[in-house]
């Protein structure tokens, strides 16, 4: 069963389309990396799933049920834009309110459980407004984790977190999907972090889903390439272009795609009077895939 299934979702703000017939499928138990540039419609999609916005058209199903089903929505945890806490109340009070809201029984136990997960058990009495940006983000995650949600929606949760915070976040997400079978929809611009945990990806551009694929599909599509730098790049490009058709200049480097034999490339350049000063073997990752996809879509 799919945790999220969206068909033809459309949303406009004063005549400007934020989402234009978006289709999206998030399998149950997946960590779904939702990628797109600023203003592409990621947050709008998440807000629509959470019922904060009303769609112009389209259908949203959560675990096969309508997204307005109270039984499903009580099992949705979300962190969208900010933690949504009362600044004058303590971390504990904010979490307590959410526990009451969700109708949880062992409130103190549940609060300690989530505070332990986000490593904030010693800061429960701290006023929310006194928390640092990173701590506020962690409290927001703790709020979203209350009641062991079946679906976790996180909008840029890594923002404001330090290196250790990012690592903790990765561990939390992987753990809750493995132990509780929780599905995670996570949007982030830090693709290197997303790549470490995501099992599925969705790329959105101008309110439309450009691509949806699993991590294994991305791995399958990955192409290897040689990346090199010479003093005379124009000449090197010309020499390589004549022999290897599949080359591109990217970020001051020449990329020779689908070529593993670096020795023959170096030999060819040397024979042409071009000595390479940098050479490395690489594989296209999420960032490269995304960049290429976006450049293709833009054209």
């Amino acid at each position, binding site marked *: 069963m799919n945790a999220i299934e969206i068909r033809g979702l459309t949303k406009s703000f004063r005549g400007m389309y934020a989402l234009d017939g978006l289709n999206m499928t998030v399998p149950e138990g997946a960590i779904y990396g939702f990628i797109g540039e600023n203003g592409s419609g990621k947050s709008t999609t998440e807000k629509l799933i959470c019922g904060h916005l009303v769609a112009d058209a389209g259908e949203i199903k959560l675990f096969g049920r309508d997204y307005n089903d109270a039984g499903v929505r009580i099992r949705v945890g979300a962190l*969208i834009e900010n933690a949504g806490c009362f600044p004058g109340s303590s971390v504990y009070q904010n979490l307590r309110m959410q526990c*009451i809201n969700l109708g949880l029984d062992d409130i103190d136990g549940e609060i300690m459980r989530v505070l332990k997960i986000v490593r904030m058990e010693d800061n429960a009495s701290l006023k929310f407004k006194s928390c640092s940006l990173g701590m506020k983000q962690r409290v927001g995650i703790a709020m979203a984790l209350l009641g062991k949600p079946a679906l976790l929606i996180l909008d840029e949760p890594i923002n404001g977190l330090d290196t250790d915070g990012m690592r903790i976040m990765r561990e939390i997400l992987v753990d809750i999907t493995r132990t509780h079978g929780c599905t995670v929809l996570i949007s982030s611009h830090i693709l290197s972090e997303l790549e470490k945990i995501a099992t599925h990806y969705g790329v959105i551009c101008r309110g439309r889903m450009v691509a949806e694929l699993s991590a294994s599909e991305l791995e399958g599509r990955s192409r290897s390439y040689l990346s090199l730098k010479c003093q005379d790049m124009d000449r090197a490009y010309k020499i390589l272009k004549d022999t290897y058709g599949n080359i591109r200049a990217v970020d001051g480097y020449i990329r020779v795609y689908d070529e593993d034999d670096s020795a023959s490339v170096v030999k060819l350049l040397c024979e042409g009077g071009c000595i390479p000063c940098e050479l490395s073997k690489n594989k296209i990752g999420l960032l490269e895939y995304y960049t290429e996809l976006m450049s293709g879509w833009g054209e």
Partner: protein
Amino acid sequence: MKTEFKEPTLKERILGMLGVDFYRLLNTPLFYIFLAISAIIPAMVSAMTVMPGPDGAASTPLYSNVWQIIAAGEPLYVVKSIADYANMNMVYIFGGIMVSIFIGHDYNSGYVKQLFTSHPKKQDYMISKSLTCAFAMVCMCVSYFIGGTVAGLLVGYDTAVNVPSLILAILGKCVMSLGWASLYTFLNIIFRRYFGLGVASSFFFGTGILIIGAAAIADGLSLDPSFLNIFLYGSSVNACLSSGLGTLIICLLVSLSWAVIYNLLGTLVLDRCDVY
């Protein structure tokens, strides 16, 4: 692993949201500040009415009886002096501002996102806010009663009163709190993105300016002003020191009717519009 979902009942949903609202209400200073205001204002009015003027001459007291600070002697749809105005109906003005701050804080903090994420049924929000704020306004009525009575006794006003009518008048005003709280909740849902407008609209409606205008027209046309009891302000004024059981029943019916109407309208707005 198969994920299972249990549909919460209406009671469970409302209790969850009411629990949050009452926890917030009782654990933040806002409520207690307004309780204090509700007690201090009638005490100040009572004290000021017998204070000598700037020239040292004794002023004429506005009231002749301690209970007139609680309710007027008879329904006064058209107020002619500040004394007619300054009674327990002022609680609805303070209450309106309190409701605006209470709901405005939901939106300013972003907590409303948590509420709407877990509660897709928008009537939960309307019902919970209306009931919580009605409770707060009833508490403010009690606080007003204590402040006004103590100050009135200290000032030395006459205490003669028809006790059942006084009790019915106070109960009537307490009952009206539900209708007023629903109105303010509705107004602040409409102006949820504009906190200042929310406060201003609550104040505007709380003062009863609209109904006073309607009453003035009715008065000018020599119409029976009791038809104004169908409005919140009319019934609130009708709960006075000459009240009978019929007044309380009217207050109950009017308050409940308007509460239902405003809750339905508020739910409709929340269902059709972006909530955050």
